């Protein structure tokens, strides 16, 4: 009796193996916990893109793409469990959608030889492919985001930020602390004063922080928040009547969920983004025909077109293009994880290709290489229109300040290489 039970437990502990010959891209998602609202949309977008490819094109190169989901609850340990339980099934590439889990997985994917793609999050210095051989963070990273925002502020101020003050309100975690070093460099370069205001997660209560902002009256506030912290920050900003157009969030503070609870007061709030917004793309026609109308949409299609959904979709797009490239290079549709890495390192997404995919201007053109795992790092600025309940793009793609970023990335990557005795390659 006891033995039989143990056997049943053991059997259940073994994750079900998918049919061979399919390509597996595990979707480490989170639909519960404090960040479940964001994770929900993202995971739906990620799934739907592959569903569309499977339904419309029969997969990529004739190979169906499976995206078995595993719930991480944004928890690093569950993330590791998900990674371990899925990697055995010929996992091709990972996209954990959590900076914390990314840090856990960086050494693991290197040991296992499975590439990881972290669009817009994760470890910034992973852009240096000579050190981080298995990690990719195109098209933009946290430091790019900070630089793009400052560039935008330069544009708004006629190229001069001298004497201005900028406050950084940040999630007191790995993610929130990322831009500090960049912004410090940029403040030296452009002569603005940077003040740092940390908010401990979860961050529903930010009265002190916003009273401080009200007293100090910084010209601009940059928001690196996540989850409830964003909603609370935008609400408090509205409460003190901080000019919304001077409050600019990183892309993870740029979803509908972040602004909607504040209602009309959030009108004019800006955030960075590395992908297009809204549903004015031909792509959505196909999506409707093949996925939404056939009832195959992930999560019932409730979030199609939302900002987080779009980002999840874009992440899937980058991975799909990588698979395609890898198949070309390998000369076979049944690629391995190592071949996937080669495909990603040869990945080039042009404007023409984006148009071909039905998403003209949705994402920036970029090219990866052995050395460059991060792409061009451009971002746009979007602004919230509360009456229409829509994000509007107000700039084109803005190039980050590579002069400042590149040395920082190199220094950080080299420190990592030294700490872990990694021999840089690509020479």
């Amino acid at each position, binding site marked *: 009796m006891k033995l039989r039970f143990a056997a049943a437990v053991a059997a259940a502990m073994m994750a079900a193996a998918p049919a061979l010959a399919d390509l597996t891209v595990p979707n480490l998602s989170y*639909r519960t916990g404090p960040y479940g609202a964001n994770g929900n949309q993202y995971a739906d977008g990620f799934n739907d893109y592959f569903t569309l490819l499977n339904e419309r094109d029969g997969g990529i190169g004739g190979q169906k793409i499976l995206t078995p989901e595993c719930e991480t609850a944004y928890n*690093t340990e569950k993330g*590791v*469990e998900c990674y*371990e339980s899925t990697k055995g099934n010929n996992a091709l590439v990972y996209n954990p959608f959590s900076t914390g889990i990314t840090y856990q997985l960086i050494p693991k994917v290197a*040991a296992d030889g499975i590439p990881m793609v972290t669009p817009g999050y994760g470890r910034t210095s992973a852009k240096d492919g000579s050190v981080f051989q298995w990690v990719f963070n195109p098209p933009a990273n946290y430091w790019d985001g900070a630089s793009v925002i400052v560039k935008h502020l330069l544009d708004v101020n006629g190229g001069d930020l001298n004497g201005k003050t900028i406050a950084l309100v940040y999630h007191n975690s*790995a993610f929130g*602390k990322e831009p500090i070093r960049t912004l410090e460099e940029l403040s030296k370069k452009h002569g603005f004063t940077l003040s740092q205001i940390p908010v401990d997660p979860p961050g529903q209560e930010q009265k002190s922080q916003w009273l401080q902002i009200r007293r100090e009256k910084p010209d601009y506030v940059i928001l690196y928040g996540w989850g409830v912290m964003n909603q609370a920050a935008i609400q408090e900003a509205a409460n003190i009547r901080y000019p919304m157009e001077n409050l600019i969030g990183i892309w993870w503070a740029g979803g509908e969920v972040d602004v909607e609870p504040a209602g009309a007061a959030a009108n004019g709030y800006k955030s960075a983004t590395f992908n297009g917004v809204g549903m004015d793309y031909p792509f959505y026609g196909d999506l409707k025909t093949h996925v939404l109308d056939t009832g195959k949409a992930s999560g019932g299609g409730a979030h199609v077109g939302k900002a987080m959904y779009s980002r999840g979709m874009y992440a899937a797009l980058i991975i799909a293009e990588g698979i395609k490239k890898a198949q070309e290079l390998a000369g076979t549709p049944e690629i391995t994880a190592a071949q996937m890495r080669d495909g990603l390192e040869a990945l080039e997404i042009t404007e023409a290709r984006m148009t071909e995919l039905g998403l003209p201007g949705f994402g920036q053109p970029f090219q990866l290489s052995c050395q460059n795992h991060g792409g061009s790092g451009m971002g746009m600025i979007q602004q919230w229109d509360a009456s229409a309940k829509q994000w509007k793009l107000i700039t084109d793609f803005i190039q980050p300040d590579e002069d400042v970023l590149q040395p920082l990335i190199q220094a950080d990557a080299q420190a990592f290489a030294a700490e*872990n005795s990694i021999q840089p390659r690509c020479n």
Partner: protein
Amino acid sequence: MLYREAGDFKTSYRDDSQTFPLKLDRMGYWVTLAVAFGVIPFVITDYWANAVLVPFLIYAIAALGLNILVGFGGQVSLGTGGFMAVGAYATYKLTTTFPEISLLIHILLAGGITAAVGVFFGLPSLRIKGFYLAVATLAAQFFLVWLFNKVPWFYNYSASGQITAPERTFLGYVISGPATSAPAKYLVCLAFAVALAWVARNLTRGTAGRKWMAIRDMDIAAEIIGVNPLTAKMSAFAVSSFFIGVAGALLFSIYLGAAEASETFGINKSFLVLFMVIIGGLGSIFGSFAGAAFLVVLPVFLKNVLVGAFGWPTDLAAHVELMIVGALIVFFLIVEPHGLAQLWRLTKEKLRLWPFPH
């Protein structure tokens, strides 16, 4: 009738105070150990190591530690996450500062440092009791996490505040860092878990354990019969924190390989370990293992059943999983408030009588 104590006589007090007075229990124990050390390392996969066994062993150590404090010492603590963070960060600082010294020694030292921190935060227990103390230990939890987040020295000034375990070897085998094999991880954790369980058993069956339990059961009477509450409570905090520190060190250096204070060692960790202790059984060493196994395995099990076998969407499964875990906690408490260990004892008592129930 197969499981019995009749005829199992003790001829010395030494025999009588051993861990498993019954021969059958003793045999079961040795067989378990033999399998754990002799069989599992050869069959273990990455998945079993990383998703089940390694976290189980590490949490068992933490639960043992907390059980010493709560179950034996009667002092409720919600600072476990913070103390685990001390262990993790101490290991990180030690092993990056003195890379030539074995990681295993650093882990023990980290336990010692955690013990010192634990004693400091345990001092209020001399004045504060019960739930007030539980909430007071949250001060340690939040302050320590804030400290490790805030002071760059603790994370060697890395940009994101993450700490990453460097590669370390023991007897030529890699035991830390990404290249660690599943058996190596498992064996290191197993060795620590077995050794510390043995230590916990020794402490709780002897003088220290009696002092702790006396304070737990009736602190005033304990003092009047000669127990110094200061040393008794502080030694409970020290020993408990040592265990928890080692667990934190292993969690970081062997299991996860990277950690961030607020994410990995948050308040949830404190609650999780406390659940393990209560569900397993307060004041029981076996219970610490049972509780850890229950709470590590159950979610993985439920996830695999609901998502893997039934094919539910992951979010539904995750929500149902929460409901099931919650309902099971309540159910267990109603059926047996003294935890899995008591359930196991009762089962054994029934087995002794089987097949003649009267």
